């Protein structure tokens, strides 16, 4: 197949898988029907089945992810809309999100070292609780792999949104502010979506936590990650 044809094929394949799995997710609302997870599996299956490789898919990737930069800038808007809740709970937000971000990173990196995980994989694990576009950049700057980080982020989003609410109830965390912040700090957008199902306050706090955790992790990572890599 010629380059242009292959490129078009991959863009159409990716967009169709996304739209189809999104429809599936919206219909059944089950966390395991995650559109990113299902579409990725489908596309990898097509690549394996046709004998094509990542090098054939890469030109399409570059074009399709071009809008990820502006999309990240767009995250400022929900944060702006929630500025009043942020200001009203500034101390718990800052302290809680920082403590949670540092704790989850430390737990992942310490466990990874204990299990003798390869340093490249370990670095890629570091920003796994941060929303994908920012996590990927943190990982790149630290010398990790973007695809691995994206996979860890999506998996963490699924894990946290499935077990997070029950774990919080088990820990007797009843405050809606605390529940929203915990879900957003660990499971970014996916956690925020679950928090929004609990209450509007929890949802707003989830969105705030996701943004603050991303900025804080980006600032802390260059100093914090090396501590676990020596």
């Amino acid at each position, binding site marked *: 197949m010629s380059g242009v044809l292959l490129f078009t094929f991959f863009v159409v394949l990716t967009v169709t898988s996304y739209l189809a799995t999104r429809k599936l997710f919206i219909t059944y609302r089950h966390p395991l029907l995650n559109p990113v997870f299902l579409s990725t599996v489908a596309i990898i299956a097509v690549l394996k089945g046709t004998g094509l490789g990542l090098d054939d898919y890469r030109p399409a990737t570059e074009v399709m992810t071009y809008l990820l930069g502006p999309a990240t800038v767009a995250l*400022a808007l929900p944060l702006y809309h929630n500025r009043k809740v942020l200001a009203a709970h500034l101390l718990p937000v800052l302290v809680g999100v920082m403590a949670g971000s540092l704790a989850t990173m430390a737990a992942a990196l310490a466990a990874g070292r204990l299990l003798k995980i390869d340093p490249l994989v370990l670095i890629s694990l570091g920003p796994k609780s941060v929303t994908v576009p*920012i996590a990927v950049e943190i990982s790149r700057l630290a010398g990790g792999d*973007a695809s691995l980080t994206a996979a860890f982020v999506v998996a963490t989003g699924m894990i946290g949104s499935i*077990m997070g609410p029950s774990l*919080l109830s088990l820990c007797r965390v009843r*405050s809606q502010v605390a529940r929203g912040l915990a879900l957003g700090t660990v499971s970014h957008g996916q956690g925020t979506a679950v928090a929004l199902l609990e209450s509007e306050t929890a949802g707003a706090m989830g969105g705030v936590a996701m943004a603050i955790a991303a900025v804080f992790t980006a600032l802390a990572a260059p100093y914090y990650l090396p501590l676990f890599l020596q």
Partner: protein
Amino acid sequence: MARKLFDICWQIVLLWLVFRCGVLLVGALHLSLPGNVAGMLIMFALLASGIVKPVLIETGSGFLLKHFAFFFIPISVGLISFGGLMRQSGLELLVILFASAVVGVAVTGATVQLLQQRRER
């Protein structure tokens, strides 16, 4: 419909310009901060100071955020090169992700609730 499409397009151009400013700023100041984070902070400052009104970017932002997850798919396809790693340590990685998520959720939730209770007393 056409009007909405037009709004989405030029508003994305605006968001893109702020993104580029973030990237250039980070490069010029030699910061170890991702350019897109700088872009987001610049946009927040523009909104908070009233220089940019929310309506000016609402349609474009809404579109990008609605389909945010789409952009993760092409990145995740890169996992195809890590088949060996997944077969070898997939389970360990899953355990790590699960355990660290438990720690993160518990620490954040407990810390915030404690701070709120102390403030109420």
